[in-house]
């Protein structure tokens, strides 16, 4: 392990490099943000609050395609990490931009879904289901946008030949965004229990 470069790459009092440890701490805090919303969603639903039957109005196809897109983007960002570990800047740069492209496709499909639902009159204030739907998917979409912006910045760094370790860190974040969607998909789209 090299002792050159940013302190985040080599200081590891816990045995985990500081940058990676910080990323995991961030994700631990994100568990409360999304987990809190999912917990309240389930409690209201199990409590028999009216409105949750509207879950049948969401598009399973759109949700499934978006799940496929995010799973594929997770593959491309982990391949970017594997490539940069071998020092292949060009390949890593390309994979990062595939991931950003997948993020754009995800947001495009989400926009299409939002537009259709809003035009049908299903707005955030209609009932508790749509309040949760727009809050959870909207917050998730903000995380997707944030991840895409950071990835773009990192891609230019690695093309210049520095901060390679950040590919792994943004990758861990991006997989978490994928993980959140893995749970949002069944509760908002397919499990109309």
């Amino acid at each position, binding site marked *: 392990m*090299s002792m050159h470069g940013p302190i985040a790459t080599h200081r590891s009092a816990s045995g985990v490099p500081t940058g990676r440890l910080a990323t995991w701490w961030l994700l631990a805090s994100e568990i409360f943000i999304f987990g809190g919303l999912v917990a309240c969603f389930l409690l209201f639903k199990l409590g028999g609050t009216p409105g949750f039957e509207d879950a049948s109005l969401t598009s399973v196809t759109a949700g499934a395609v978006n799940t496929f897109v995010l799973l594929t983007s997770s593959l491309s960002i982990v391949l970017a990490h594997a490539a940069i570990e071998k020092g292949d800047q060009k390949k890593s740069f390309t994979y990062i931009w595939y991931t950003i492209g997948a993020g754009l496709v995800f947001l495009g499909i989400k926009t299409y879904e939002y537009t259709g639902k809003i035009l049908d009159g299903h707005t955030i204030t209609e009932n508790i289901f749509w309040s949760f739907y727009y809050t959870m998917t909207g917050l998730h979409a903000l995380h997707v946008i944030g991840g895409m912006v950071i990835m773009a910045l990192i891609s230019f760094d690695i093309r210049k030949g520095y901060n390679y370790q950040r590919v792994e860190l943004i990758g861990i974040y991006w997989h978490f965004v994928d993980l959140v969607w893995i749970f949002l998909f069944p509760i908002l789209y397919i499990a109309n229990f």
Partner: protein
Amino acid sequence: MSEAYGHPNYVKIWFLLVVLLLISVAGPMLEIPVLTLITAFGIAVLKAFLVAANFMHLKFEKRIISFLLILALCLLGVFFFGVAPDIMMTDGDQWIDCIADKSCVEQRL
């Protein structure tokens, strides 16, 4: 660079995730509620495990990270059971159903 991991076969894991996605979408088509719950949430947990272990490299990571995540999930459990009575119990003199009675929301704004 930070220390390198071994890399599993990512394409194989991605393929497995896609197969699980297809099963979770097909589950509700059988219209058996229990099966839908199993295929929806059971498969979500399985997919999450595959992503965390392989793509996030949790299976190669130091144990302290797993402990950190388990601690976060336990605290989330405390939150869940702490909030549950407030959401699910409707007894008590001061309890107002603001979802059924929208005027109570307007009063509080």
